[in-house]
């Protein structure tokens, strides 16, 4: 291989309108979502099975915020990382419209638990998602060199496909009731595939690429990445089978799969720590802080889940409080903190690139750090995490007074975050004269 592929391809990444549209839509949904969690908390956290507002909040988070964002980021990142052109930019745009229109219909369907609307919206969301999965899979298959990020993303796409397909089956089941018994087990499989298979593997894959880059850590071998990948897959697939067919895999075997998942999560925490401790700059940037917090949530949840399962922990209201609290901390802690941290870097960088890359050397261009308000970002970091930890503990313990306060803090932090990220699109805050030379 005398000639690296990098020189052969110049503009691999798609038109920046593709990721920008996804990012802006997702941030708007995020703000609406934290407002809904604050205003509708009495209903949302009361029970989860067929609770319209809980279903609305969960799917606004998973599809509207997290999936929307991962789709936008993947369209931008995968071509750059894998040195291929995106299979189809047109498909990316049509997928976005199908998904977004479908999402609005789907969320309306959840709000009123109106099954025909739910199924119609769900079908559009699924079509939009299939378009994304197809587009990205074709792109991955074109890659001249495979790497850790591609491996994690490939598996994540497969789990995403399973999750949404199962989701539509569950929506149809609301009407027809063809799933014989223990629908909750199927709901649990849907949640496990989506949470660990889709979000966690996708975020880990992207993290393996971006975290070393943001920390300026170079040439650090990924010794743990593949063991983590196989442990996680064993855990996800095993948990799904154990939940679907409890007769085949007894409780003992099932808890082994959860331990495999927990081990994968803890090893990933070790890897992130390796990256952070080798960083070139003494100061921890916003992205690294948010990422560390996110991994902290995930590790705490993995340890917590292992303890709950092995001790068969039970208390008054545990059947509602435990799944609700775990889901809240997983989505708002692990998934959201990781996304927020990365957006603080990705959005300024892409906007900067879009506006100024053709002007560099010819005229003064702003510095990257002038694109985003770091101080406001630091406030957001503390507010957001205090809010999420407080609200998570309140949900787990059924403490409604404090829950209200902490969900308010979480919502306030999300407004600061949205303001900070969306104003990046308006251009730099102030242009300092660049020192030449």
């Amino acid at each position, binding site marked *: 291989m005398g*000639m*690296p592929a990098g*020189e052969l391809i110049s*503009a691999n990444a798609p038109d920046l309108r593709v990721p920008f549209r996804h990012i802006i839509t997702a941030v708007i949904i995020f703000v609406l979502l934290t407002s809904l969690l604050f205003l509708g908390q009495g209903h949302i956290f009361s029970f989860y099975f067929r609770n319209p507002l809980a279903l609305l909040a969960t799917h606004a988070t998973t599809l509207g915020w997290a999936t929307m964002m991962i789709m936008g980021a993947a369209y931008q990142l995968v071509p*750059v990382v894998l040195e291929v052109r995106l299979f189809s930019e047109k498909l990316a745009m049509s997928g976005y419209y199908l998904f977004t229109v479908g999402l609005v219909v789907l969320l309306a369907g959840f709000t009123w638990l109106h099954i025909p609307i739910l199924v119609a919206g769900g079908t559009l969301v699924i079509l939009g998602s299939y378009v994304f999965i197809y587009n990205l899979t074709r792109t991955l298959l074109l890659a001249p060199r495979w790497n850790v990020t591609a491996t994690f993303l490939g598996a994540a796409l497969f789990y995403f496909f399973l999750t949404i397909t199962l989701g539509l089956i569950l929506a149809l089941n609301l009407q027809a009731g063809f799933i014989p018994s223990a629908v909750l087990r199927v709901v649990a499989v849907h949640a496990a595939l989506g949470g660990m298979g889709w979000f966690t593997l996708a975020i880990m894959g992207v993290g393996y690429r971006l975290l070393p880059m943001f920390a*300026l850590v*170079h040439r650090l071998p990924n010794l743990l990445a593949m063991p983590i990948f196989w442990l996680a897959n064993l855990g996800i697939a095993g948990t799904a089978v154990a939940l679907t067919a409890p007769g085949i895999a007894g409780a003992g075997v099932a808890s082994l799969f959860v331990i495999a998942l927990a081990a994968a999560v803890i090893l990933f925490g070790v890897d992130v720590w390796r990256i952070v401790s080798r960083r070139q700059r003494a100061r921890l940037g916003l992205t690294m802080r948010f990422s560390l917090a996110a991994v902290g949530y995930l590790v705490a949840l993995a340890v917590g889940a292992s303890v709950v399962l092995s001790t068969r922990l039970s208390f008054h209201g545990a059947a509602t409080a435990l799944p609700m609290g775990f889901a809240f901390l997983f989505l708002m802690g692990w998934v959201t903190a990781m996304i927020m941290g990365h957006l603080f870097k990705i959005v300024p960088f892409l906007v900067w*690139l879009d506006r100024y890359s053709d002007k560099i*050397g010819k005229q003064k261009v702003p510095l990257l750090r002038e694109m985003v308000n770091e101080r406001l970002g630091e406030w957001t970091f503390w507010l957001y995490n205090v809010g999420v930890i407080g609200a998570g503990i309140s949900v787990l313990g059924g403490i409604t007074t404090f829950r209200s306060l902490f969900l308010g803090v979480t919502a306030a932090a999300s407004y600061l975050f949205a303001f900070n990220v969306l104003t990046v699109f308006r251009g730099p805050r102030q242009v300092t004269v660049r020192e030449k030379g």
Partner: protein
Amino acid sequence: MARKVEVDNRGLEPPEPMVRILEALEKLGPDDILVAINDRRPFFLYPQLDERGFIHRTEEREDGSFEITISRGGGKQGEHRG
């Protein structure tokens, strides 16, 4: 006389390597060659080099960093030399 201009970008945070390369290229003489050393393949630089009519070649060095050799393309845009 042709000069060889060297830009060492190791340890710099993106997009600083790209800025330094493009700024140095603006001062590059017609027959000069610019050799940059980056920690990573500069994916976002390539479209700019093509647009500005430079010829470039990237090679991975033994220590895992990348050496990018850039010269003026003599007016022919987007051409690469192997």
